[in-house]
């Protein structure tokens, strides 16, 4: 195998696949990237068996073939090469010669035979979405995923294609974020998957390369084809992301979304975020809550920790309901406010033991459970 490639394109390609490596102890080949040269392109593939990524970069291929190399070190070397022109030459015994300007490397590789191939998809359920839209939806819910490994069902984002709507849901059992989008869902293609947190992270990183993203899935796995038409550093065709899904039943999230609206206030998102953020500066690990108090046209936020001190913030709002107060983990309040982009949000409250609900006019809901007032 032999090809000539632009250093920056090569480095950009490697950067796309770099994050997905397996544990070295069980299968050393999983720390390698599979490099395959054909026609005018090379493809780069990494996998940890649960998750795999493949991208394609343009190159001047002189001799087709394949080899695998340790991805982390290769990426570091390629980034540092002195000249923009790089030649890559793999011998049949999997030794690779890498040359650029005056610098020459010889790197030991492993043959392609040991590398587990990425499963290809046939005629599973398929949808096409705008990349920016999917990225926006994922951002507005992904912070609510659970990181508690004992609740593995919640370690991901739930994609539900149903009733002419795509809903994305994430929850850690204390808060839940839900965003919906109207779209055509043919009965035969209705279905749901839980996309693992790691895959969600990779997807969020990749979703700005082009217009469209195509999703294929069945009960056990999902694949994303991310178009790269907006990329200008060598990527061609699309990036292929393959992932197993979390198997199991996602909790019935509909039942925790309050059906009735009690007290609703309209808030300036940035201003409210700043107030909560400042008040939370006095919180400690032991007393990690902010108290929100509503009285006539006034919202007050207080926080305190016994060994440090206290904070008080107030905001003028339009409110004429009964006085009420409720406490929340400040992160639960700030996360959705940070993820949203609109200037105004609605916040609905009932009493000190009922959840608070953030809403926007765009099918977004975030339910947060309160902290008991002491």
């Amino acid at each position: 195998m032999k090809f000539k490639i632009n250093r920056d394109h090569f480095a950009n390609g490697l950067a796309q696949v770099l994050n997905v490596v397996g544990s070295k102890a069980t299968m050393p080949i999983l720390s390698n990237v599979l490099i395959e040269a054909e026609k005018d392109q090379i493809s780069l593939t990494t996998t940890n068996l649960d998750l795999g990524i493949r991208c394609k970069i343009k190159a001047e291929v002189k001799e087709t073939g394949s080899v695998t190399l340790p991805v982390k070190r290769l990426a570091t070397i390629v980034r540092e090469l002195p000249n923009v022109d790089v030649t890559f030459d793999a011998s049949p015994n999997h030794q690779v010669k890498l040359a650029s300007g005056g610098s020459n490397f010889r790197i030991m590789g492993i043959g392609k035979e040991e590398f587990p191939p990425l499963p290809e998809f046939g005629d599973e359920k398929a949808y096409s979405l705008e990349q920016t839209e999917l990225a926006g939806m994922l951002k507005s819910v992904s912070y609510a995923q659970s990181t508690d490994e004992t609740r593995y069902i919640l370690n991901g984002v739930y994609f539900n294609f149903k009733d002419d709507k795509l809903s994305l849901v994430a929850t850690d059992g204390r808060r839940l974020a839900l965003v919906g989008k109207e779209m055509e869902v043919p009965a035969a293609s209705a279905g749901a998957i839980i996309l693992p947190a790691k895959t969600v992270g990779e997807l969020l990183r990749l979703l700005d390369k082009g217009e469209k993203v195509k999703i294929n899935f069945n009960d056990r796995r999902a694949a994303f084809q991310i178009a790269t038409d907006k990329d200008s550093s060598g990527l061609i065709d699309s990036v292929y992301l393959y992932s197993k899904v979390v198997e199991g039943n996602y909790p019935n999230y509909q039942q925790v979304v309050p059906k009735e609206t009690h007290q609703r206030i309209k808030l300036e998102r940035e201003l409210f975020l700043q107030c909560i953020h400042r008040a939370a500066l006095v919180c400690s690990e032991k007393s990690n809550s902010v108290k929100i108090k509503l009285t006539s046209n006034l919202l007050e936020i207080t926080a305190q920790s016994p060994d440090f001190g206290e904070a008080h913030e107030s905001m003028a709002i339009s409110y004429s309901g009964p006085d009420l107060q409720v406490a929340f983990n400040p992160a639960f309040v700030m996360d959705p406010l940070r993820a949203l982009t609109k200037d105004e949000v609605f916040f609905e409250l009932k009493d000190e033991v009922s959840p608070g609900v953030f809403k926007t006019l765009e099918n977004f809901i975030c339910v947060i459970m309160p902290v008991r007032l002491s």
Partner: protein
Amino acid sequence: MSLPTIVHLDADAFFVSCELALKPELRGTRCAVGGRERGIISSASYEARACGVYTPMPTARALKVCPDLIMLPHTSGLYGKVSGQMFDLCETLTPFVQRNSIDEGYLDLGPCGFTTVTEIEARVRQLQQRLWADLQVPVSFGLATNKLVSQIASKLRKPRGFVTVPPGTEAAFLAPLPVGKLPGVGPKTEAALEGEGIAFVRDLLARSDRELKSLFGAGWEEMRASAEGRDDRPVDTSDEDAKSYSQQETFGRDIGDFAEIERIAKRMVDELLAKIREDKKRVRTLTVKVRYPDFTQESHGRSLETATDLEAPFYSLVAPLLRVAWKQRRPLRLVSVRFSSVEEPPAQLEMFAQTEEKRRRLAGVLDQLNSRGRDAVVQHGHQLGTQKAQKNAEEAEG
């Protein structure tokens, strides 16, 4: 000037004293509080002790060494109540009272402004007299400059002891005592030390650091400090919450039926969790202990992922734990259940907890119903099966 302001109080034969306060006609007799035939002596009068009765000793054996022993059953609730009254009286002398257990604790008179040893002794004697006058509970006192020495002093001349160790004489006070009086030296260590020629505290002090190091390992410095009567632990007045909840039952006859033992253990789980809910706590670890007729015992425990105050998550642990603990194919004389890893309920409310909340509401109602009488008014289904079987058996016999 330093004063002996740390006082250790230790009630004498506490359970028996509480009973005698109600039945003064038994004063001076050989009596003991404990379980009947198959139970254990939990407290014995000094007259009974003179006869060779000690705690904990199986009642059957106690009756052998002391045939005229008068056995008094446990009066539920009495000892806790008297203990509370006893410590409340102590708090009339100083607010710094450490309630160590039901019948002993520490007082710190340091901040009370006493200036002489005589004054301190007079006030503590007044307290001792008042405890007797008001509660008819004899209590022994030890006065010293620290907890270690005062605790050894109070136990030195029981009952109704009153020992003051003047400041500066701690080491001299301890030197002639058997080494087993020191904290951390149990009967086994004591025997081993005697084999090394260390019978008294002074023998220990005569050894070099190097020898102590080889005898006690990492704890040698602490051991030397103890032997010299040095201790700087403060009297801890913080209200200590329960670290565990436990219950045990000695059977009237040995039981070999697994289902019956499981039923008894589950009943204890129910009863303990009612108490845990009352204290507004949660527990995570369940330990089941079994005891064979020859008093050998075995226990096994397991923890849940998260602490709870409901019975249901523990039910599925009972049978497996019992199977692991009860290895020998022999009937049991006792089974006990213990909950540990006690936690406060989390302040953060959960979302998908409807079932748990429903169960908690139900448990609250049951607790209320059951708190009215001694016997459970409403029971879980697992308690019914065997009762029916029992009834059938009784009918068959009849």
